[in-house]
């Protein structure tokens, strides 16, 4: 009964979303206030239905209802509770439902926090998102219904993919989807603006916090995914340029360009076409990512079970949404173009340069991701594009971004003088080069790439500190400095921190693959690892070999690490559980490999890694997200709301 309620509420949601979409768009064009007034309650009803449906599926998982095909395929009675709940989004159908719930949650949030927006804007934004929801609801109901029943009920489920049985599954996909789907919000604002034919500073001010919020979720989601891959896959890598990773990274790159372009649109009324275009591209890339992951056109470690029917549907959906919005853009963009001059040396210029670089980087990553598909479609053969392409294309585009970032935050709007900028920045540049070139000497062998990266890191961090120092000195009251100013610098420092991690790991990591018997030791980067024993342990739904490895430095045992090799009952594919000792400046990482048969005494293959500063990669991402949160929380976005509240309470605003 419960699964049928879930199914039924999806069907109801389809009709609510249809009504919301059509009434909102038509009502907006014809200026019907009564129709527009339906937008907020409509969005709330849609959210309630989606949430109900989601709860029904969760219930089916929790109660091991294997009559539901999706549950039977992705759960098992021995699966621990927490994974039984997270298993809801462990497969294609359920993750689509999660997608929908996230979309509706963003709509719910807009319906609640939009008092300062005119009704026509709110109703158009919610209508556009409602139409997107229609597409996803149809997709689910036609090709991927999570509530389908089985006629003969299996005694037990097939179990969740062991790779996914990890705390990472609980947090990573919801966060990532939140960001993915969040790109729909600036997209909807842009489409609404094109429909309105009005795109001004006020529009940019409304859109900015939403775009930033989506960007924050995407940042956290991607970095969690990277961290998950790092400790779960057992190969010590933290980014593989896999098509699915790229699918999440592309909207992030474009989203980063978008939030900066929005800043210019708000402050100076410029780059309007850019802003609109970036928000359309950002969401299109989210959809494209969905297509790539679920249609099976590319090979990837993440790919879901594929079905050509699904691919055709998403492609059609993509054509309607992206094609439609690009056509609307072509028809209307003439109206939103606006003049406003800025000189060659100005903040606008530097932000534009960086936006072009970020977009180019996104295009390069997209090309690399789709290249195998294009080559195949042209019958030129089969090939795969690996990390060497991405690394060699991506780094040369990102290093200048780091350089111009500082100029962008230093230069004045509209017009600045190169001489004056030079005077301000020269000491900073000299100190950065000196520090950047000498720091690698402390870490290990000197290489120009490490030196260059670290120079840019110092360049960003020192400039942020200098700017903050000047700002504090110049302002009478430090509380008057808007919180978004701190947010910007924090996010920029986050980039620097992340780059430190990437640079140090790339430059100085050490890895050893060894054969170890009990009592054997191996030394990596000054640490000695001693295998003292291997025991068999039984988990709830797996058996494991657990190694006990002593981590020794200077003759002192720091701690023991316990890497495992697990065999889940449901699949014979062995899984590595790594053991990591982590601190602020390095990780040491042990993974237990195969038991080796040859030789008299038992031995195991072990992989041991020393990864300097690796946690900084994710720490930097968190700083970026935190900085983004501070920027999104700036008071000016809530000003009108506050003022109206003050008035209603009879206090002079």
């Amino acid at each position, binding site marked *: 009964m419960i699964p049928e309620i879930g199914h039924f509420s999806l069907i109801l949601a389809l009709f609510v979303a249809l009504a919301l979409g059509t009434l909102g768009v038509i009502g907006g064009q014809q200026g019907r206030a009564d129709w527009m007034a339906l937008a907020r309650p409509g969005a709330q009803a849609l959210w309630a239905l989606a949430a109900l449906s989601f709860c029904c599926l969760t219930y089916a998982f929790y109660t091991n209802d294997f009559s539901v095909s999706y549950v039977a395929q992705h759960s098992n009675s021995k699966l621990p509770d927490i994974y039984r709940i997270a298993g809801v989004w462990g497969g294609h159908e359920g993750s689509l439902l999660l997608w929908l719930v996230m979309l509706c949650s963003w709509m719910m949030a807009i319906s609640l926090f939009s008092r300062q927006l005119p009704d026509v804007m709110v109703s158009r934004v919610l209508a556009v998102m409602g139409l997107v929801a229609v597409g996803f609801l149809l997709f689910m109901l036609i090709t991927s219904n999570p509530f389908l029943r089985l006629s003969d009920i299996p005694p037990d489920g097939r179990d969740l993919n062991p790779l996914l049985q990890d705390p990472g599954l609980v947090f990573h996909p919801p966060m990532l989807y939140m960001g993915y789907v969040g790109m729909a919000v600036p997209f909807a604002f842009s489409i609404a603006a094109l429909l309105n034919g009005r795109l001004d500073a006020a529009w940019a001010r409304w859109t900015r916090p939403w775009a930033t919020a989506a960007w924050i979720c995407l940042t956290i989601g991607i970095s969690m995914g990277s961290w998950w891959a790092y400790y779960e896959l057992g190969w010590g890598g933290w980014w593989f340029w896999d098509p699915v990773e790229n699918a999440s990274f592309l909207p992030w790159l474009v989203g980063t360009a978008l939030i900066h372009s929005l800043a210019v649109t708000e402050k100076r009324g410029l780059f309007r076409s850019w802003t609109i275009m970036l928000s359309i591209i950002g969401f299109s890339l989210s959809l494209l990512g969905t297509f790539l992951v679920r249609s099976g*056109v590319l090979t990837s470690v993440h790919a879901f079970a594929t079905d050509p029917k699904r691919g055709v549907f998403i492609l059609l959906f993509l054509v309607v949404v992206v094609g439609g919005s690009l056509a609307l853009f*072509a028809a209307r963009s003439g109206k939103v173009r606006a003049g406003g001059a800025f000189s060659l040396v100005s903040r606008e210029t530097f932000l534009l340069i960086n936006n072009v670089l970020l977009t180019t980087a996104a295009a390069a990553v997209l090309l690399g991701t789709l290249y195998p598909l294009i080559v195949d479609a042209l019958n030129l053969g089969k090939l795969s594009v690996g990390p060497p392409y991405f690394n060699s294309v991506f780094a040369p585009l990102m290093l200048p971004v780091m350089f111009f970032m500082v100029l962008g935050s230093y230069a004045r709007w509209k017009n600045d003088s190169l001489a004056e900028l030079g005077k301000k920045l020269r000491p900073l540049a000299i100190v950065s080069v000196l520090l950047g070139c000498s720091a690698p000497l402390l870490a290990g062998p000197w290489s120009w790439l490490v030196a260059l990266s670290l120079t840019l890191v110092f360049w960003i961090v020192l400039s942020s500190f200098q700017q903050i120092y000047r700002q504090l000195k110049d302002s009478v009251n430090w509380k008057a400095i808007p919180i978004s100013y701190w947010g910007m610098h924090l996010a920029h420092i986050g980039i620097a921190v992340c780059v430190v991690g990437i640079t140090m790991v790339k430059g100085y990591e050490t890895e050893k693959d060894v054969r170890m018997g009990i009592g054997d030791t191996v030394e990596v980067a000054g640490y000695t690892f001693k295998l003292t024993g291997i025991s068999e342990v039984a988990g709830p739904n797996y058996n494991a070999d657990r190694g006990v490895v002593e981590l020794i430095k200077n003759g002192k045992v720091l701690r023991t690490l316990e890497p495992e090799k697990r065999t889940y009952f449901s699949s014979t594919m062995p899984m590595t559980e790594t053991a990591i000792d982590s601190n602020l400046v390095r990780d040491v990482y042990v993974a237990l490999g195969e*038991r080796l048969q040859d030789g008299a005494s038992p031995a195991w293959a072990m992989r041991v890694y020393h990864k300097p500063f690796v946690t900084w990669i994710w720490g930097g991402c968190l700083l970026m997200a935190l900085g983004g949160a501070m920027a999104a929380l700036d008071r000016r976005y809530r000003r009108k709301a506050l003022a109206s509240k003050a008035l209603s309470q009879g206090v002079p605003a």
Partner: protein
Amino acid sequence: MNRKALIPLGIFAVLVVFLAIGLTRDPHEIPSPLIGKPAPAFTAPRLQNPQQQFSGKDMLGKVWLLNTWASWCVACRQEHPILMEFAKTKTIPVVGIDYKDKDTEGLKWLARYGDPYDLSITDQDGRIGIDFGVYGVPESFLIDKQGIIRYKQIGPVTQEALRDKILPLIRELQK
């Protein structure tokens, strides 16, 4: 309407065409002209014992699996535990081709991770690989009693491929 604003739409249209063509293909499948044909003849020194030569003909009368691997190949490490399990079942002989690899590296790799192969041969210059139309390592060929290639696995042998394709085919071929 200005013309320039149509450019993104044009780019998108081209992209859609490629995606649509992509939908009709399976990226995992590289058609091998060799399926149903006799395996190319080869003779090569054995990895562990270079004085001894091994020839594909030695296996006539047996169903066997020919697997290309290399110590530098990351995907081979992914495939490796599955081959180890498979070798333990002693279903059919597994012959490895150490493809474009240094012998010492290959031997070290086997010592480190374990050796699932009944024997391995060396193919330092990749000649045998070329004859077999190897695109990338790992690739595996299932060869029947008459020396005819019956199945080609591109990329790592997965649990699913083993269960759903290779094992049923072996049972059929062994009849």
